[in-house]
């Protein structure tokens, strides 16, 4: 059983009588320890896919299994618990809480999993060490550069040792040099055995990951897997849905 198994998932929005298929019958497996990118032009449905994979949203149709749990019909409370313990998010706009210190931001997921404040501090410091920011723990997010803020966000995503980390355009708000450094950090984390999914519209960023899933109009257009087909050789989508 794969870590994530998506079967025939659709997400349909209705806007003034018009039907928008943000996701259209998507099936997808992600194995534990994989480093993948979900790539596609703006509006193709990448974020929608990530939200559904990340338990922020529920599909209109289809089934999803995550780490042994069927989540497509879980309650909001169960979803919150899964987000808290099994999923880490990194966003384009960092999404740190400006009033909290760096350390408190990293502690936040553990606050909701009921970990004692002593343990929270030590674990948050460990996570900050992983992103080389342990000496900035007392600062406020606004006192850090964009790259540093994104590293704090990554530390926050990692602190509860999630099964999978989703990063939605994590470099989209950074200059190319800083973006490189963030990607380098993701690669390192992947090498340490974490499962990471990058969401991006930029093929250059997607090129970092061994496996790439290309989305167009809510459908998987093609998948590339370097492990299966040798470095960077494009293979046709294995099982087109319709």
């Amino acid at each position, binding site marked *: 059983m794969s870590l994530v198994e998506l079967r025939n998932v659709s997400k349909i929005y209705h806007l003034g009588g018009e039907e928008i298929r943000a996701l259209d019958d998507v099936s997808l497996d992600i194995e534990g320890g994989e480093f993948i990118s979900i790539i596609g032009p703006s509006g193709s449905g990448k974020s929608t896919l990530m*939200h559904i994979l990340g338990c*922020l*949203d529920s599909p209109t149709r289809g089934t999803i299994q995550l780490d042994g749990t069927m989540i497509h019909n879980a309650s*909001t*409370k169960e979803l*919150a*618990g899964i*987000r*808290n*313990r099994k999923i880490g*998010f990194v*966003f384009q706009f960092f*999404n*740190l*809480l400006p*009033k909290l210190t760096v350390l408190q931001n990293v502690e*936040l*997921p553990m*606050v*909701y*999993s*009921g970990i004692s404040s002593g343990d929270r501090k030590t674990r948050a410091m460990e996570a900050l060490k992983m992103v080389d920011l342990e000496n900035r723990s007392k600062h406020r997010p606004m006192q850090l550069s964009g790259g540093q803020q994104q590293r704090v966000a990554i530390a*926050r995503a990692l602190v*509860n040792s999630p099964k999978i980390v989703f990063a939605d355009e994590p470099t989209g708000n950074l200059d190319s040099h800083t973006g490189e450094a963030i990607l380098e950090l993701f690669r390192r984390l992947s090498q340490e055995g974490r499962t990471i999914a990058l969401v991006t519209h930029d093929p250059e960023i997607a090129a970092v990951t061994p496996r790439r899933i290309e989305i167009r109009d809510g459908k998987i257009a093609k998948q590339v897997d370097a492990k299966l087909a040798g470095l960077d050789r494009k293979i046709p989508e294995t099982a087109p849905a319709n």
Partner: protein
Amino acid sequence: MDLWNAIVIGFKEIWSHKFRSILTMLGIILGVSSLVAMSALVKGMENGMKEALVAIGGLEKVRVEQQDIPLYQRHLEDQAIGSTIHDVYALQRSAPLIKLVTPEMRVMPGGGWGGGGTLITHGIKSVRDRVQLVGTWPSAIEMNQHVIEHGRMFNEVDDDNAWNVCVIGTGIRDQLFGSPEEVGHEIIPLGDYINVNNQPFRIIGMFQRYESEQDRKLRELERDMPKVTQTGPERRRGWGGSGRGGPNSWVYSWKNATIYIPLNTMWIKFRSGGYGSNSIPDPRLSSLYVKVADIDLLEPALQQAKNVMMHTHKGIEDFAFQTQENWSESITTSIRNARMSGGFISAISLLVGGIGIMNIMLASITERIREIGIRKAIGATFADVFVQILIESLVIAVLGGFAGIAASYGLVHLLTVMSPTENTPVITVDSLVLAFIFSGFVGILAGLFPAFKAARLDPIQALRYE
């Protein structure tokens, strides 16, 4: 998320918007302080009323009054003798639930019995009206809660010999000898003679000055302060000196206007002095007071007294018992009314405070939609967010409650200074606790809707929100 964390977050939120939070709290502060101050005023009022009730003899004191004979006994009218000294003896003997029995006899000008136009003179000064000239027994001291400050009360010997001795209230002294305020020092006229309806009486004792707690404080305050020169013509402020005080001050001036003489003296010197239409000694008392041993046994005690007196009155019911229960009930009623209207006003201001809190909480969650989205994305449940917002609202209200309690002390002080003649307001622990609970309640109530709104936010929408 644990509660402590939520409280800490609540304090941080408030701290990061200090000015806004204080403005919001103002409503609660006003509500709480008005609640506490109102109840302090009512408590002061209640104390003043109860003080007056005690000064007049307390609930245990019951007056036995003459009453018209019931219709079916009208034919026995000529045998109705009224209350006599024999009733007193009989009650003392046969009514164990009655602790004390005191007879009273008053003179009436031009014959008859009662109070009124007694003339008391000393030198050129005189008092006529509102003198309470009473012939009684030494036990009147206990019955009417008198305190002899100078000299002594007359005793059985004085009574047996019908000596012309009297014990006076300070109101009488003030009129005949001058009050301490006018003279500059206190005159104690022990041994002096005054004329009571043209008969000389020796003053052997004087009561203490009766006044409400409030008046006493005020008088002491005035004595310690330099005298303010009075403008305009000299004026006297009513009877018995002060003329201030609340609605119950008549109790005190009435007590200060007392002159006690022995019952026998009253009987022999005034009754036999040619008043009335016949010269046959009439042992009729003008009134009779009994004090019950236990207020909880008022009902059976009065029944007992009635049985005894029905016997001495040969079955003719020409007497009735007059208790202070009506007064006591009217105190209870007016206190309840005052409490109700005060509570109503305070409840409205607390409500307004609550609306203020709700308003600010709604503004606050709108500002923090993104924050709420982030919290939900990393695992906050509906309940987590709900409790957090509710606690923030509660923290504002409770802080406001504390500030309101502090403010209420200031408010009560202000009220006391502004209007010192009223009864001193008393802040009770009960009202503090009540106000505090109310402010917490308002905080929770005001937070419910904003908390629900925040907790229900969809994390994706919230994260997209700019």
